C-alpha cells in the first residue's frame, strides 16, 4: 500500500505500486494519457508521485523494451524519407520525455552496444552529455574539461559572417571575416547549428614549432604572404546615429553644414565630405574626427539667447564625428524618421582590418594567442614538398594544458586535406586517431604527422621533424586597433579636475595606490608630487579662520566671507581633491581649520 501524490497533493493510495506505474506508463506511451506527465516511485517513503506541473526540465530518450530500443531501422528510414517527424515518434511511444524525478527510476544507457535487458531507456546520442556550444569542439573527449569550456567560450568570439543581411543591418560593433571557410574537421553540431553555412574562421596550415622566440608565451607567428592574400582580413562596421531633435518653444536642431560663426566650430577640413544637405556622401574616405552629419543646436540656456544675441552665432555645433583608429569608409547612409517624427540619420562606417601584431587568434580548444610576429613567406620554414605554414604555433602551449584534441585535429585536418573529404570529429563518435594514422601512412606521410622541414632563411634542414597539418583557426573579436590608446593631455572630470577614466573618454592611466607606494619606496618624493599634480590648484586661504576664501581677480584681492574685512588671505598650492575633502568634511559638520605657517 503506497501513497499516491498528484502535483504534490495526496489523492489516495495504491495497492501494487509497481504494477500501477507500469500501467500508467503504458497508457502514456500509447497516447491515452498526456505525454507531458511524469511519474516516479519513491522507495524510501513508499510514495508514487505524479507530476504535470510546469517548470520541470525534461529531456527526450529512446524507450527500450526487453533490451531492444523501440527506435528501429524502419523508423529511421521513414524519418530520412520525410514520411514521419519527431512528433510521430513521441506519439507512437518510441521516444519519451523524462524529468529529473522519473529519471531516478530509469536505467539509461549511453551506447547501444552496452544495452542489456535491465535498461529502460537509450540515449539518443552520446553527444547529449555536452551542450550546444561544447559539442562544437571536435575530439572534445580527448581534452581536459577546462579546455573544452574555454574552447567553447572562444567559439562565440570568432569572426565570420554572422548574418547574411549584414549590409542592411545596423548592429553596433559588428565584424565580417572576408574569406570564411567551413572547417575540415567538424562535429555534427556545426551542421545542425548552420555553422557550415556561415562559418567562423578558416582552415590554415600550422606547424608546431618555435620560431626565434616570437611565439613565446602563447603568441603565434603568421605568414605575411597569407595575410596579403586575404587570410583573416575582416571588416568592422559601426553605425552612427544622429537625430534632429525638437525642443520646447518650437526650436529645433538643424542638419546642415555648420557655418563658421557657430559656437564650437571645428576645423574646416573635417566638413569637406558633407553634401549640401549636411550629410556625408557614401563611399567617402574618412579619418578620425571627420564629421558624418553636420548639425547645429540651439543654445543650452534659452534666456541668454533672448537677452543678448540672436541668430546663428548663438547656436552650438553638435555634429556627429567619427571615432576610428585608421582610415574608414562611409558604407551607407540611411535617412528616416523616429517615432516622435524627428529626422534620423544613421551612417554606417566600415573599416578594413588586416591582421597585425597583437590581434587575437584561437583554435577551438582554448589555445588562444596573439600575433607575435608577421614573417615574410620566404623566411618561413617549408617542407620537402614546398608547403609553408600559415601559422606557427608554439609546442610549449600543449603539455601544461593537455589539449590532445589540438594535436589530433592537426592530424585529422591533414588527412582531410589530402584525401579531399572532411572529417567528423564529433565527441565520443568520431574517426579515431588510429584510423587517422593509418590513413595518413597510406597517403604517403609519416603517421604522426611530422615532416622534415627547412629553415626559410638559411635553407638548412631542421634537426627535428616538425608536426604540420591543417587546423581550423578563428580570428577573435579583440583587435589591437580597437584597444590602442594613449594620452598626453586631454579632458578632465568636472568634479575632481582629475583626468577622465577609460578609453572612450580619452582617459589617462591611473597611478594607483600600489604604484604610489613604489614611488615612495624609491624615495622619489618630488617625482611623486609632480605625478599627482594633475589637479594642482592654488587656493586662497584665510589665515584667520583657516578656510578656503574667495579671490577677486579684477581687484586682485582676496576676501574671506567669514572674517570679512579683517581677513588675511594667502595663496596656498594644494591638490583640488584635498579642497574637495575639506568641503566634504564641512558637510559632515567637521571644521577643518588650516593653520598656515611660513615654509621652514
Amino acid at each position, binding site marked *: 500500500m503506497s501513497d499516491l501524490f498528484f502535483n504534490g497533493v495526496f489523492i489516495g493510495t495504491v495497492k501494487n505500486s509497481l504494477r500501477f506505474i507500469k500501467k500508467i506508463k503504458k497508457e502514456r506511451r500509447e497516447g491515452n494519457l498526456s505525454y507531458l506527465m511524469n511519474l516516479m516511485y519513491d522507495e524510501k517513503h513508499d510514495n508514487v508521485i505524479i507530476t504535470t506541473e510546469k517548470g520541470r526540465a525534461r529531456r527526450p530518450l529512446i524507450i527500450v523494451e526487453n533490451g531492444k530500443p523501440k527506435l528501429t531501422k524502419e523508423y529511421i528510414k521513414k524519418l530520412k524519407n520525410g514520411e514521419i517527424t519527431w512528433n510521430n515518434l513521441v506519439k507512437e511511444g518510441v521516444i519519451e520525455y523524462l524529468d529529473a524525478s522519473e529519471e531516478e527510476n530509469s536505467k539509461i544507457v549511453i551506447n547501444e552496444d552496452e544495452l542489456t535487458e535491465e535498461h529502460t531507456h537509450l540515449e539518443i546520442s552520446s553527444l547529449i552529455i555536452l551542450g550546444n556550444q561544447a559539442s562544437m569542439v571536435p575530439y572534445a573527449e580527448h581534452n581536459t574539461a577546462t579546455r573544452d569550456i574555454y574552447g567553447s567560450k572562444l567559439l562565440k568570439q570568432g569572426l565570420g559572417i554572422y548574418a547574411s543581411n549584414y549590409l542592411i543591418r545596423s548592429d553596433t560593433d559588428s565584424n565580417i571575416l572576408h574569406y570564411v571557410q567551413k572547417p575540415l574537421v567538424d562535429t555534427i553540431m556545426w551542421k545542425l547549428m548552420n555553422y557550415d553555412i556561415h562559418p567562423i574562421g578558416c582552415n590554415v596550415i600550422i606547424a608546431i614549432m618555435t620560431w626565434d622566440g616570437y611565439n613565446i608565451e602563447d603568441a603565434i607567428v603568421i605568414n605575411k604572404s597569407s595575410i596579403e592574400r586575404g587570410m583573416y582580413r575582416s571588416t568592422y562596421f559601426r553605425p552612427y546615429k544622429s537625430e534632429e531633435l525638437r525642443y520646447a518653444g518650437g526650436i529645433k536642431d538643424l542638419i546642415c553644414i555648420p557655418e563658421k560663426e557657430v559656437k564650437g566650430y571645428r576645423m574646416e577640413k573635417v566638413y569637406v565630405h558633407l553634401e549640401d544637405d549636411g550629410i556625408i556622401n557614401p563611399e567617402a574616405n574618412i579619418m578620425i574626427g571627420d564629421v558624418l552629419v553636420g548639425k547645429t543646436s540651439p543654445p543650452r540656456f534659452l534666456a541668454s539667447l533672448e537677452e543678448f544675441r540672436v541668430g546663428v552665432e548663438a547656436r552650438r555645433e553638435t555634429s556627429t564625428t567619427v571615432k576610428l583608429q585608421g582610415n574608414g569608409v562611409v558604407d551607407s547612409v540611411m535617412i528616416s524618421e523616429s517615432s516622435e517624427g524627428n529626422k534620423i540619420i544613421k551612417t554606417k562606417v566600415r573599416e578594413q582590418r588586416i591582421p597585425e601584431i597583437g590581434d587575437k587568434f584561437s583554435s577551438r580548444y582554448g589555445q588562444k594567442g596573439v600575433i607575435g610576429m608577421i614573417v615574410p613567406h620566404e623566411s618561413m620554414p617549408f617542407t620537402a614538398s614546398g608547403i609553408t605554414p600559415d601559422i606557427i604555433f608554439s609546442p610549449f602551449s600543449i603539455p601544461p594544458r593537455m589539449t590532445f584534441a589540438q594535436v589530433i585535429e592537426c592530424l585529422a585536418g591533414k588527412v582531410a586535406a589530402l584525401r579531399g573529404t572532411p572529417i567528423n570529429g564529433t565527441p565520443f563518435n568520431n574517426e579515431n586517431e588510429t584510423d587517422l594514422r593509418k590513413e595518413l601512412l597510406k597517403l604517403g606521410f609519416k603517421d604522426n604527422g611530422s615532416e622534415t622541414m627547412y629553415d626559410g632563411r638559411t635553407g638548412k634542414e631542421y634537426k627535428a621533424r616538425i608536426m604540420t597539418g591543417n587546423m581550423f583557426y578563428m580570428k577573435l573579436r579583440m583587435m589591437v586597433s580597437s584597444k590602442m590608446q594613449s594620452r598626453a593631455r586631454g579632458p578632465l572630470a568636472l568634479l575632481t579636475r582629475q583626468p577622465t577614466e577609460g578609453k572612450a573618454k580619452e582617459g589617462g592611466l591611473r597611478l594607483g595606490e600600489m604604484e*604610489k*607606494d*613604489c614611488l*615612495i*619606496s*624609491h*624615495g*622619489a*618624493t*618630488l617625482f*611623486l*608630487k609632480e605625478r*599627482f*599634480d594633475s*589637479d*594642482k590648484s592654488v587656493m586662497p586661504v584665510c589665515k584667520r579662520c583657516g578656510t578656503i576664501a574667495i579671490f577677486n581677480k579684477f581687484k586682485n584681492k582676496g576676501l574671506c566671507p567669514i572674517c570679512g574685512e579683517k581677513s588675511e588671505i594667502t595663496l596656498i*598650492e*594644494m*591638490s583640488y*581633491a*584635498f579642497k574637495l*575633502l575639506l568641503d566634504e*568634511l564641512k558637510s*559632515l*559638520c*567637521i*571644521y577643518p581649520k588650516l*593653520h598656515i605657517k611660513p615654509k*621652514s
Partner: protein
Amino acid sequence: MKLPKKLQDKYESLNEKDRKKLLRNYEESLVAPGEAVGVVAGQSIGEPGTQMILRTHKFAGVTEIIISKGLPRLIEIFDARKTPSTPSMTIYLKKDVSSDEKKVRETATKILELKVKDVLEKLIVDLLNKTVKIYLDKTSLKKFMINTKKVSEMLKKSMKKEEITYEGNVINIKSKDANIKNLYKLRVKVKDVYTQGIPKIEQILPVKKGNEWIIKTFGSNLKEILKIPEVDTTRTFTNDLFEILNILGVEAARNAVINESLMTLKEQGLSVDVRHLMLVADIMTADGTLRGVNRYGVTKGKKSVLARASFEVALKHLFNAAVHREIDELKSIVENVMINQPAPVGTGMLKLVVKHDKK
C-alpha cells in the same frame, strides 16, 4: 663611526687595509637617511604573499600534527590574534634525555593531557543501583602509566558530591540525587574528567631531529611545560604569541613574531630578508604589548588623523578627531601625498640651504 660590538671585535683583529675595507662596506650597507623602510618592508612581505596558496590552510598528514600554514598563518601572526587557530608547541628536552627514545616517550606520555575517555573500555549506567560504572581499559592504563586508583582519585577531586568506589579496573560512581536524567548527565561528564598530564596538550608526537628527539604537540600550555624538569627551557617554544608575551615578556614575543613569520614564509619556499620582518615585529611590540598590523593595533596608534582616516573606517576617525580637536602636523607621508606636498621621505626628507658668501 661606532661599530656594533660584534664587528668592533673583528675590526680590531684586522690589519689597516682590511679595516678600511670593513668600514667602507659597513657604511655602504647602512640604510640611507630618508629610506622608506616601512613601505619597502611592506612590499617585500606583500609581494611573496601574493604567491602563497590560500588553499594550504591545514595540511592533513598521516603522523604529522595538523598546523595552519601559509597565508592564513601569516595573517594570524601579523594580526596578533589572541589565540592561534592551531596552537602547537615544539618541546626540546635536556641533553641526557633527548637522545634516549624510551625516556623521551615516557616524558611525552607524561605531558599528554589524559582524560577518562582515553582509558575507557566501556561506560555503563546501572539504573537499578543508580550508579555509573566505568570499565577502564587495561592496556591503555599501562600505556599511559596510570592506575585505577589514580583515576578514581581524580574523579573524586572533580566530583565531590558523588560517592566513588573502585574495584579492580571498575569504578563505581553512585549519585546521591539520582534520577535518570542526572545519571545520563553524569555519564557525559565523566568522559571529560582530567586525570593526568598537562591541560590543553591534546596530541603529542615525538620526532627525531638530527640526533636528538623533540616533542611536537597540538595544544599549547607553555607555563606548565616549562615546569617539567626534563624540558630544555631555553629552546622550547610555542606558536601562541600571547602566551610567550605573558610568560616570557615582550622581547621574547618580538623574537617569536620574527621566527614564526620567517618559518611560515620559508615553508612555502619564499625568502624574505629577516630585517623586514624584524621591523614589523619591532613596530608590533614597540609599546610593550603585542599590537596587530590592522586598524585596531598599529594603525590606531598613528598620530596623524588623515593617515588613520585613509585606512579603513574613515568617518569614525574624522569624527573623533573633530571631537578632540586634533591637529594634524602633516609630518608623515600619506598626509602629504593627500594634499600634494612633497612628503618627508627620500629626496623630500632633507632641505638644503645654500649659504651665500658675504662678498
